């Protein structure tokens, strides 16, 4: 199995059963997985900030939720995923440090922004592990559309169970 690392502000999609998409140690960032469990196409985005308004010029737009979500949908659809069948899984959005900074925490704002985008595209969230103050790793197994989450010192646990009878690409 080949693990594809999806780092800050990156996204990746695959329909190849040998692939595993991974974001290691998500803190305030959101790992957004989009899966079409029938066709076996999926993608993962590592969203850093909620919105690009006002300060996106010349920057990688994919770190922002408002750009990353539509782009991830496009990538998964290009690989054979059907937009109406896409389902979302959210991991991350934690507040690692208990310091009140006045403004609402980045993690919470990231989650809200991603959910808003998903709602606009009519994509349901079928599982999530978000908020709190722990870092998390997300893995998306293309072979069986399994999505797992792991906290520091813990084991991988299934957020989305393996699908049977998937036609391997």
């Amino acid at each position, binding site marked *: 199995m080949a693990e594809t690392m999806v780092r800050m502000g990156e996204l990746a999609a695959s329909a190849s059963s040998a692939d595993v998409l991974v974001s290691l140690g998500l803190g305030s960032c959101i790992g957004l997985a989009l899966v079409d469990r029938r066709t076996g196409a999926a993608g993962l985005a590592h969203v*850093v900030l909620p919105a690009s308004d006002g*300060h996106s010029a*010349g920057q990688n737009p994919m770190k922002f939720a408002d750009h990353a979500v539509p782009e991830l949908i496009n990538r998964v659809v290009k690989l054979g995923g059907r937009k109406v069948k896409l389902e979302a899984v959210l991991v991350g959005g934690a507040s*690692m*440090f208990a*310091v009140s900074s006045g403004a609402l925490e980045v993690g919470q704002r990231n989650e809200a922004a991603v959910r808003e985008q998903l709602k606009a595209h009519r994509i349901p969230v079928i599982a999530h592990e978000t908020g709190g103050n722990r870092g998390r790793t997300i893995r998306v197994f293309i072979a069986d559309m399994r999505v797992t989450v792991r906290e520091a010192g813990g084991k991988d646990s299934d957020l989305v169970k393996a699908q049977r009878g998937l036609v391997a690409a």
Partner: protein
Amino acid sequence: MSAQYSDLQLDALRELANVGSGTASTALSAMLGRSVDITVPNAFVLPMAEAVDSIGNPEDDVTGIVLGVFGDMEATVLLLVNPNHAALLCGMLGVPADSEFGESALMEIGNIVGSSYINALAMMTGMEIEPTPPGLATDMLAAIVESVLAQRATGGDVALLLDSDMVVEGEDCSVSFLLVPDQGGVEQLLARLGL
């Protein structure tokens, strides 16, 4: 805008980091009652996606102590300590590591070390900057580092990291010290130096 810095600018930033971490290590030394050495500081300019890997293994457990910096320059100070080394530091201060006292002792180390560094920067540059109270977390390295970077990420795609290690003499114990200014903060810092 993605910022690029000249060698001269990076040298100047490294020199600032050198004086800052020298002052910080003196403060740590006084607190622990031991000699503390510093390594030569690095100044890295990295794409954000690569910054976490440059600091360490993303899933390694690490204790992070953060202080915000506000005023003429916005930045975050991040101290990273391997949990075993954190326990050693607590031992030197005579408090049990796995307790509230351990956590507050580590935060106090962050407070004193971070404030000394910030004060040294302020003295050298004439900037008015102040630290916020510290926060602490023990978790995956990536989760801690990316949360700090995310906070500073609105201005650009590159992270400037000024880093140096403080090593407690005679013990297998070191503290990594990182200053992560936001992009406006770096420009402010360089402008004060006339660069």
